[in-house]
């Protein structure tokens, strides 16, 4: 397959080699009970990672936080993922990390190279979680002991961590604290709440957590961005009317006041089961919201895109993304200057491909989809990351390891 890429940078060959050797072993010995193939790739190295989240620092350094066998590690690369600094474990003692398919470590790096990391672990066998936060003030050489982002001990999972223009850190997550008063009144509490907190001291402390909205879906990732300074926007799968798991956006009126929620689309997905597939959100410089989501609703099924030019009040008619015969899923959007970039996964029964589309006019006209990467084994969700004008696909796959692939805008 010919790939339209400028560079393909895999991690060191030694690491890849050992990952492949371990894979072969895994396929030979399937009769074990550990589940996930991680059983045979048993260390914390990037080669064993199941999720990897990238971030470019303003100085062009690529930072990567990954999850492998209960450990979140961080390393950085100054040559676009060809070579890496020695990995540093954020939690040296392995934890029962949240293994939800949409769970992943979050990483953000500010202009002074402070590195912020957040991730979730399970606190019990009932899948109640705890979001832990850590930071490095010495350029990633060491990380502070990870501490809970809130002192509430119910459940927090699926955190998003984003840096505002003034350097403030905004964290949002799915939080189940409000089920306590509900149950005390004998009421059933559906799903989770959308919790949030701010740090205005570069991650030294976080404000007391608040719940912006109750009864969101409890198992799907959040999409987060900014409508302006101090005005985060969160896209999430909500639970409408107790049973319908369609998408919503919420824009903060100011840092501490969540605005109303608006429904992105009436897909009418009635389900009591966690879809484990959350949305992706990007906000272009003109303030337009762009969202891609997955649904199995009675009104539509598949992957869809819509945009809103009025702060989420109204959205365009959903536009289908991908080939419905190939299970399109796991979308990721990025708005870079005037170009909108969208990647997602498809699967044909043997290979998983990542397709790319771009739009130069705010999502009205899109390029034809083209395949930019593929793999024949398990893979993480595809992500997009940007360094200046260059946009990259960031993708962790079992067989190939970590890949950072420079994407070309062919529109």
């Amino acid at each position: 397959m010919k790939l339209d890429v400028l560079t393909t940078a895999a991690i060191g060959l030694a690491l890849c080699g050992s990952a492949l050797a371990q894979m072969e072993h895994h396929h030979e010995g399937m009769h074990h009970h550990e589940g996930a193939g991680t059983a045979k790739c048993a260390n914390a190295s990037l080669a064993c990672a199941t999720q990897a989240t990238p971030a470019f620092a303003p100085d062009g350094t690529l930072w990567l936080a990954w999850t492998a066998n209960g450990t979140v590690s961080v390393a950085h690369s100054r040559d676009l993922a060809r070579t890496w600094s020695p990995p540093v474990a954020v939690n040296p003692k392995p934890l029962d990390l949240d293994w939800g398919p949409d769970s992943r470590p979050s990483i953000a790096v500010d202009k002074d190279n402070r590195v912020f990391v957040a991730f979730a672990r399970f606190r019990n066998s009932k899948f109640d979680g705890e979001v832990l936060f850590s930071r490095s003030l010495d350029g990633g050489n060491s990380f502070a002991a990870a501490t809970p982002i809130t002192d509430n001990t119910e459940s927090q999972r699926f955190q998003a961590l984003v840096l505002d223009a003034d350097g403030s850190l905004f964290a949002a997550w799915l939080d189940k604290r409000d089920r306590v008063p509900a149950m005390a009144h004998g009421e059933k509490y559906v799903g989770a709440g959308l919790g949030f907190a701010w740090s205005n001291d570069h991650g030294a402390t976080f404000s007391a957590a608040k719940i912006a909205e109750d009864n969101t879906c409890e198992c799907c990732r959040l999409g987060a961005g900014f409508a302006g300074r101090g005005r985060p926007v969160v896209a999430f799968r909500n639970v409408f009317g107790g049973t319908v798991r369609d998408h919503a956006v919420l824009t903060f009126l100011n840092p501490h006041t969540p605005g109303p929620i608006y429904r992105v689309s009436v897909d009418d997905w009635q389900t009591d089961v966690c879809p484990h597939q959350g949305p992706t959100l990007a906000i272009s410089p003109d303030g337009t919201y762009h969202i891609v989501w997955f649904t199995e609703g009675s009104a539509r099924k598949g992957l869809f895109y819509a945009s809103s030019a009025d702060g989420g009040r109204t959205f365009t008619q959903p536009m289908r993304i991908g080939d419905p015969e190939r299970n399109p899923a796991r979308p990721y959007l990025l708005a870079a200057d005037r170009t909108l970039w969208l990647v997602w996964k498809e699967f044909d029964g043997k290979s998983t491909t990542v397709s790319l589309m771009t739009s130069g006019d705010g999502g009205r006209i899109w390029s034809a989809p083209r395949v930019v990467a593929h793999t024949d084994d398990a893979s993480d969700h595809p992500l997009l990351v940007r360094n200046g004008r260059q946009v990259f696909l960031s993708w962790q796959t079992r067989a190939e390891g970590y890949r950072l692939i420079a994407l070309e805008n062919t529109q």
Partner: protein
Amino acid sequence: MKRWLALALFGLVLAPTISSSAPMDDLRNFVRGSWQQLRQAHAGAPLIVHFWGVTCGPCRAEMPRWGQFLKQHPGLPLVTIDADLVPNDADAVKSMLQQSGLTKAENWMFDDDFVERLRYEIDPHWQGDIPRTLLIARDGSTTTIDGVVDFAKVSAWLNHEDKESN
């Protein structure tokens, strides 16, 4: 393919848990190719395949009801497959099967992290939502039930299959 709407049973009164001290029969590992193997082993006979997961709330509520159904229908051609969207611990799967009175069913669990491939072999359009039940008739025609089943409908299907064989 007929799809019945999921019934909103999550959180309602559960069927009483059947305690079973029967030892766990083999819990088989479901890997690439297992589906074809399973279908071949049951070819020509009616078969119920129930997909569930340890982390799926509605599934946990439904499993004891399958256990009861099995008790009411000895010899029920029932296969359970733990197809959780997250990797499950085999002990947790066995424990749930035991508590539900399902140790006598043919029990499998997904054991390959390339789950897209496992699901594709079963149904190319299945995105992994559970609970999910397939009623596979003697002639191979399949009725898919998304969500918690209505056992009256499963009984009706079984009766129909039994009549077909007479």
